[in-house]
């Protein structure tokens, strides 16, 4: 006797129109709360208002899409992807964007210092203690951060993945030696290893990438090795052997393409860890030095004197950039892992 009402949505008792109204109301309320938080409230109230407003607006947007598409859609991955694309494009084009001075303090001598964000048209995110534009610094920081972590992960995948495939293919002595070597790198806690490397290397993009790559190699070796062992027992490898393919050919043409996919899904997750590691090192004053901006050394500016009490945005602006980027990579990485490498998705 039960007939589904076509005007009702699946998974809820609300009609499309009411869902759209509810969604619109939530979005409006959320936006209003954000605006209120930015204009009227102060101190901890601003933060609370911002978080609550964003959550409200997000749940409203989910309902609007639900009403429009007639089914529940998870918006968050798309938002994350959108943020990363926006940031990536901005970082890529940074030198050609019409941004105010963000790096050279002598050029910004005449600029007002400690301008608050969202109040002045020519400095949308405000300025720091030297009159340098925070938006410009954040985008150039993204550029440094992305270049370092991407090149580190590429080196890590290539070197670590290949070593792992070799270990998994030859087994025995080769495998054991490689195992002991990777365990030795893993025996030093990651941040300690980075600090030690930073202490002896000159800070610079190339050395930072090298240090971070060294950090990712052991996990890439392990994943490459485990997957190779699994694939080496499959029929197509046996077939290649029977046809008389050389060892190098089996490794490069049969094993590497199959091992690459799980390696890439791990890579997306590792990028966020690398971004955090690079930022931590800069924060400790051991990474890329000022005046070149990185999110880490921008955040460390907030520690000087009473900056955090008087100009909390010096901490909040780069902090938000860092958080949103790390969050996006974490979320997308988890989804990538669930799709392409379901076995290791648990950790």
């Amino acid at each position: 006797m039960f007939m589904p009402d076509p005007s009702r949505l699946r998974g809820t008792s609300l009609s499309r129109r009411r869902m759209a109204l509810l969604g619109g109301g939530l979005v409006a309320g959320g936006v209003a709360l954000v605006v209120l938080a930015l204009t009227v409230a102060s101190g901890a109230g601003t933060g609370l208002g911002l978080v609550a407003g964003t959550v409200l607006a997000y749940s409203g947007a989910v309902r609007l899409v639900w009403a429009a598409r007639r089914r529940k859609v998870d918006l968050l991955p798309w938002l994350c992807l959108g943020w990363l694309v926006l940031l990536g494009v901005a970082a890529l084009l940074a030198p050609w964007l019409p941004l105010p001075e963000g790096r050279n303090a002598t050029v910004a001598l005449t600029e007002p210092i400690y301008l608050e964000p969202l109040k002045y048209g020519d400095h949308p995110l405000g300025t720091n203690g030297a009159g340098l534009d925070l938006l410009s610094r954040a985008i150039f920081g993204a550029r440094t951060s992305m270049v370092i972590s991407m090149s580190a992960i590429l080196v890590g995948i290539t070197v670590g993945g290949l070593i792992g495939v070799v270990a998994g293919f030859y087994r025995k002595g080769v495998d054991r030696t490689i195992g002991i070597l990777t365990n030795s790198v893993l025996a030093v806690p990651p941040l300690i290893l980075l600090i030690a490397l930073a202490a002896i290397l000159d800070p610079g993009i190339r050395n930072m990438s090298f240090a971070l790559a060294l950090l990712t190699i052991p996990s890439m070796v392990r994943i490459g090795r485990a997957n190779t062992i699994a694939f080496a027992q499959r029929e197509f490898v046996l077939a290649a052997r029977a046809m008389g393919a050389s060892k190098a050919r089996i490794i490069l043409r049969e094993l590497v393409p199959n091992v690459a996919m799980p390696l890439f899904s791990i890579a997306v997750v590792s990028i966020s860890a690398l971004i955090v590691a690079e930022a931590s090192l800069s924060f400790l004053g051991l990474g890329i030095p000022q005046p070149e901006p990185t999110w880490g050394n921008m955040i460390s500016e907030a520690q000087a004197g009473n900056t955090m009490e008087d100009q909390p945005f010096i901490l909040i602006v780069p902090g938000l950039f860092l958080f949103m980027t790390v969050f996006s990579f974490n979320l997308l990485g988890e989804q990538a892992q669930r799709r392409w490498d379901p076995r290791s998705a648990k950790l």
Partner: protein
Amino acid sequence: MRKVVVRLTELVAVLLIVSFGVFLMVALIPGDPAVAILGEGKPPEQYEELRQELGLNDPVVVRYFDWLGGAVTGDLGNSIMPPQSPVAERLLAAIPVSLQLAAMGLVIALVVAIPLALWSAARQGGLVDRIVGASMFGLLSIPSFLAGLLLIMVLVNDLGWFPRSQWVRVSDSLTGNLHHAILPAIVIALSEIALFTRILRNDLVVTLQEDFVLAARAKGQPPWRIMVGDALRPSSFSLVTLFGISTGRLIGSTVIVEYLFALPGMGSLIVSGAQTGNFPIVQGAVLVTAVIYVLVNSCVDLSYGFLDPRTRRVHA
């Protein structure tokens, strides 16, 4: 038994390689340590004498074993920056601070994470589960130095609940020590809470589908007893593995927190050593943390048999 012997030799090999790496790290630095210690502009004989005294003219392998012999007997050289005290002395003074912070962080993390995981696993898919899941995922994306600064901004500067950048030794005053250590420990705990809760909750959800849980339900045991008495122990398996992995993170966030709050632990020592180029300090601190880290992970391996009897029978 044979497995234990293989593991032990591997352990020794790893420790030897790590110590060699740590030794090389400083040995290969460009620049003359004799010049660094004496300063420039002294007569050449004086440098040569010091080099001879420090053994810098010997081959690398000889110097390594000299250094290792010293390290094993507790002699890690002297700090090359003032105060020029022995490195081992400085490390010994710093280790208790770091251990206390890390242990407090871990305890706070477990005390918060286990109930949270039990609660959300019991109401899988419910409102509590979703809110806890979302906030833990968000928490996981906040680097510890950012979380620490935000907490300092709100709890120290705005509300004035906690002091900043002081350390009171336990021997001086227990309450004073706790008062100064609690906020740093909370910062250390934050990311561990997020990780522990997520992993333990996922494991509990799987365990709750097992037959023995159904049997306990059929016997009419109250839900909380099933959660705590039946489901928790088999689910804590991956939590222990994770504990091994997260020791590295724990050490990392302890370093950051000590730097943030200017606490006199290993982290501050190693960071200031790296900033000023005080290599013997960095060398000693890296060696000690690596040894601690390796030993903790070996203990984690051994504890599997205790937690899950099924692994005891497997002789691979």
